[in-house]
């Protein structure tokens, strides 16, 4: 699992995750992910387009970060999940807790308009 992030220039931080978000994947990025999401003053979009697999440990990582962000008055949303990952998020009901958009552009528009 790889992670990188970029400031969009309009007050958003986009975090890109790549690979499998399983036990090994979560272990590889969770500290950096938590740090990036909680210390950023900007709202966060998590780009899932390159995530090929999502297990419950990965969901926990996302939920913990989203909760932390919300606790600090910020927002974290997800975008562009591949079909298999999208299905897992829906089956776990996570889309009801953390907004999930089909594209990063839709996420940007929604988070800026909110």
């Amino acid at each position: 699992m790889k992670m990188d992030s970029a400031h969009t220039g309009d007050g958003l931080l986009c975090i890109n995750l790549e690979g499998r978000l399983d036990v090994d994947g979560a272990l590889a990025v969770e500290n950096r992910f938590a740090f990036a999401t909680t210390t950023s003053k900007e709202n966060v979009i998590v780009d899932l387009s390159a995530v090929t697999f999502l297990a419950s440990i990965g969901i926990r990582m996302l939920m913990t970060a989203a909760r932390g962000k919300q606790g600090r008055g910020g927002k974290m949303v997800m975008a562009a999940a591949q079909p298999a990952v999208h299905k897992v998020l829906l089956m776990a009901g996570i889309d009801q807790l953390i907004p999930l958009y089909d594209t990063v552009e839709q996420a940007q528009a929604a988070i800026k308009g909110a």
Partner: protein
Amino acid sequence: MEQPGCHTLVLKSGFRAAGEASAWARDLAHRHGVDQEQTEALDLCIVELVANISDYGYGNAPGEIRLTLEFSAQRLTLALEDDGPAFDPLQQAAPQQPASLEEAQIGGLGIHLVRQFASDCHYRRTCHTNHLEVMFDAHASHAAAN
């Protein structure tokens, strides 16, 4: 393509076990010509269940996790065995959909996902061994596909 058959793997519990089980299952699924949807369901379930046994099955002591995968034209069956204390994961109550992120339980999703993605599951306990069977029907229209 491999002929229908039965394959076994014995793992040591630990943080690497789920990844090893996943790689083994995906390789076998590919060799048996299993479709993508069924492979993804198998992958998720094996990761969740092996991680569960590794995290809770033996406490802090290492233990064995024995896996069997049986392939047939209509059904794929995953069997897991461990010698930890009696634990029936199917008795775990399904999580309620929380009203908000603050109320959401961070844990407990693994078994819920297994129930959603498998066609059927059975648990039994014999002597000192937990046995869990998880079935995936070919092209089944169970809850996850709807």
